[in-house]
């Protein structure tokens, strides 16, 4: 008889209720949405005459059409049910977390519900695993999710698809929870595909504009490439390790030697999946386009939760990555290159959401550098703080876009691009709350000391530096390059990225909120702050962005200042990722506090330097509105056009596929071979045989008699001589 788990019989038994509540919300809101779809009225978006030409992205096209129309038939009920289910599951999750802290358990708490695939020795169960890592993720998903659901009330209320929006958003939370709670890879994969589906549905939420629908398809197709990697990794796991649940895989993996080819292959395929979901090179191209969806969706799915699933998966599979320094170094390289590449693109973007999108890609790269270097705690820590400040930045940009649209509409001004920063400027007078909250988030993401991002980013860079000498990783080789060289290089690139992050974020703030207003004078007096239902979540997230660092204060900081215990998250995650961390670092090397302090000072100098440079170099007064701005040249043009990656992919991949599909597959195989040869061909052959048969039927009795006589003769001949 095994020892009963300390969480048995506590509120943790109700973990199944956490995803079930949003699922109920999805069902109810889905029914609301279908009832209006079944009885279309004046809210039908396809009837909207203005949806074609307003703005470049089509966001709010449907909203404008209904400004003076009616709200959704079930608007009140949706407003209550949509956010309430997520808030309830957050409260439940918080209660479970409190129980977990009290119980002090180390082993994962696994709940088995039913068998899914009982195939011989392959036993896949529907099972949830509650441990320290999944608890952190559940709290982030339901907590940030609740805030974003509340914000969505203000943002989406006038939309004809209000109930549909909340149904999708609830469903996303369900799948995301399944992803982080799954106790084996197949259950994670169900959540993994489910969030991909919801992401697709929400990117193309305003699907009557084909740009939005195309962006959704792009996200879905690019993610397929990554999912292929995830599937192959699962096949390899099953055929080589014979297990798919985490406990089983971890036990079997321990029998493999470090650096074994099988484990490296599994890790690399898993990482391909992560690169797709978390928008890393070369599969990052879908994330900037995903900004076509409603802005709260960008905040929840494409910044705070879904795109961090890859980081979660690597932290979850740390026992595998710890066995493969090669794969871990690959993760560092891809993450680091992505971070600096995306940050450079963000430097010259004009669309406020595109800046944030590339910033997200860049910060995700940071997280991968962390988990790749075996600093799993640092990676997850940055995941958490990034969820705070990036959700805040996206919601803030949503608040701005909302205000811009309302102003254009009420001022009866010509509708210019409401997301282009060249059409903004001076917004701090109109929107003081949004301005203040977004500055907090900017300081946090830039890594200014005592804000959340400073501690998490510093920890990633610090651990990278620490591991660059004498650790298992540093002694390993990647395609012949020594690991320590790679780690030092990416430490340097990380600092450069931090510097660039500070520049582009300050640039965004200056162009949006400071200087003279460049908005159409007719719309200018109508710019005003968002309602409290939108600013409230901003304020909560601002507090979290400022104080999120308290989750995992470094030791040098707690030694210097009496602000409580340090490294809380580190100790919290120790049971899950501790062994893997030790395996990759060798015997736990610890840099002296003074050295850590020096590293932090360098990182802080980068952040402050970036902000200073942006302040000195950028001249918001010289900007003109988007329509009258000159074309960029040289390097600026290359950055503004995102290194022409989309164009190159279009030329090298998309158009050859289209051409082959059109000439060979469509005209050749479909029309020619299948329709021509097989469908019509079989008819032609039948008709030919019928023609010959008809000629034989002469109708003359004599001919038939001849045939019979010859047949008899033949038979007699066969019987006689045969």
């Amino acid at each position, binding site marked *: 008889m095994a020892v009963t788990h300390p969480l048995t019989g506590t509120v943790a038994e109700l973990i199944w209720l956490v995803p079930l509540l949003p699922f109920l919300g999805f069902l109810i809101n889905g029914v609301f949405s279908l009832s209006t779809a079944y009885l279309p009225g004046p809210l039908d978006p396809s009837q909207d005459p203005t949806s074609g030409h307003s703005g470049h992205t089509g966001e709010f096209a449907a909203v404008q059409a209904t400004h003076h129309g009616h709200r959704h038939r079930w608007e009140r009920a949706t407003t209550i049910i949509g956010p309430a289910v997520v808030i309830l599951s957050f409260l439940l999750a918080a209660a479970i977390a409190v129980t977990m802290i009290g119980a002090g358990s180390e082993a994962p708490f696994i709940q088995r519900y039913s068998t899914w695939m009982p195939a011989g020795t392959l036993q896949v169960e529907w099972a949830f695993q509650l441990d320290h890592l999944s608890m952190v993720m559940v709290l982030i998903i339901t907590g940030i999710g609740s805030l974003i659901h509340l914000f969505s009330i203000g943002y989406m209320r006038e939309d004809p698809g209000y109930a549909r929006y909340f149904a999708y958003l609830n469903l996303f939370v369900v799948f995301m929870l399944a992803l982080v709670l799954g106790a084996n890879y197949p259950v994670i994969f169900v959540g993994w595909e489910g969030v991909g589906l919801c992401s697709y549905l929400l990117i193309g939420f305003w699907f009557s504009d084909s740009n939005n629908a195309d962006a959704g398809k792009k996200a879905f197709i690019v993610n397929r490439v990554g999912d292929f990697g995830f599937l192959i990794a699962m096949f390899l796991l099953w055929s080589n390790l014979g297990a798919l649940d985490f406990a089983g895989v971890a036990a079997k993996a321990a029998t493999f030697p470090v650096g074994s080819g099988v484990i490296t292959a599994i890790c690399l395929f898993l990482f391909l999946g992560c690169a797709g979901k978390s928008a890393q090179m070369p599969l990052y191209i879908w994330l900037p386009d995903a900004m076509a969806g409603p802005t709260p969706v960008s905040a929840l799915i494409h910044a705070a939760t879904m795109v961090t699933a890859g980081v979660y998966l690597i932290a979850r599979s740390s026992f595998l990555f710890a066995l493969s320094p090669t794969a871990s170094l690959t993760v560092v390289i891809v993450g680091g290159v992505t971070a600096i590449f995306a940050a450079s693109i963000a430097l010259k973007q004009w669309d406020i959401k595109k800046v944030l999108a590339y910033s997200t890609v860049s910060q995700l790269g940071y997280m991968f550098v962390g988990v790749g270097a075996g600093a799993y705690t640092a990676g997850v820590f940055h995941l958490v703080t990034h969820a705070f400040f990036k959700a805040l930045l996206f919601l803030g940009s949503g608040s701005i876009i909302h205000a811009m649209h309302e102003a254009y509409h009420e001022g009866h001004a010509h509708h210019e691009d409401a997301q282009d920063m060249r059409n903004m400027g001076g917004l701090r007078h109109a929107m003081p709350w949004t301005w203040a909250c977004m500055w907090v988030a900017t300081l946090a993401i830039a890594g200014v000391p005592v804000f959340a991002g400073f501690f998490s980013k510093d920890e990633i860079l610090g651990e990278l530096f620490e591991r660059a000498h004498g650790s298992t990783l540093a002694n390993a080789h990647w395609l012949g390059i020594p690991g320590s060289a790679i780690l030092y290089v990416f430490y340097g690139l990380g600092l450069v990225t931090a510097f660039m992050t500070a520049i582009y974020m300050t640039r965004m703030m200056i162009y949006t909120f400071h200087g003279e207003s460049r908005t159409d004078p007719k719309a200018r007096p109508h710019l005003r702050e968002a309602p409290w239902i939108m600013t409230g979540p901003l304020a909560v997230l601002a507090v979290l962005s400022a104080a999120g660092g308290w989750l995992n204060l470094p030791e040098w900081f707690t030694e210097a200042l009496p602000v409580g215990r340090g490294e809380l998250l580190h100790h919290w995650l120790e049971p899950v990722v501790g062994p893997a961390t030790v395996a990759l670092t060798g015997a736990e090397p610890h840099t002296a506090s003074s050295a850590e302090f020096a590293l932090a000072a360098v990182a802080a100098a980068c952040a402050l330097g970036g902000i200073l440079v942006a302040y000195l170099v950028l001249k918001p007064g010289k900007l003109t509105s988007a329509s009258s701005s000159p074309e960029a040249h040289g390097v600026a043009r290359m950055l503004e056009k995102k290194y022409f990656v989309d164009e190159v992919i279009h030329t090298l991949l998309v158009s050859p596929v289209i051409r082959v599909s059109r000439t060979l597959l469509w005209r050749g195989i479909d029309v020619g071979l299948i329709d021509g040869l097989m469908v019509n061909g079989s008819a032609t052959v039948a008709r030919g045989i019928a023609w010959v048969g008809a000629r*034989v039927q002469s*109708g003359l009795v004599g001919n038939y008699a001849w045939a019979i006589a010859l047949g008899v003769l033949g038979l007699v001949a066969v019987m006689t001589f045969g």
Partner: protein
Amino acid sequence: MIAPALFFSACLFAIGVMGVLTRRNALILFMCVELMLNAVNLSFVALSKLHGVSGQVFVVFVMTVAAAEAAVGLAIVITVFRHFRTVDMAALRLLRG
């Protein structure tokens, strides 16, 4: 004695077959069919010398059936003549495909 009888029977049968194959008048076709039947009868009788009396019994049956067949066949020929005003089989091609 059997061999000449069977040879004669085969000759009669061949004459009947050739008549059926080459002639076009329905009445003559009919008579040729009768000729073939009688050729078979002859061989039955001849072979009954070897195999016992059952061959002769068969002959009686064949003649009975031939009589019935003649009645039906002639009735059809008369109906055909009333309808088409001819009994030339080459003129009747309604079953042509």
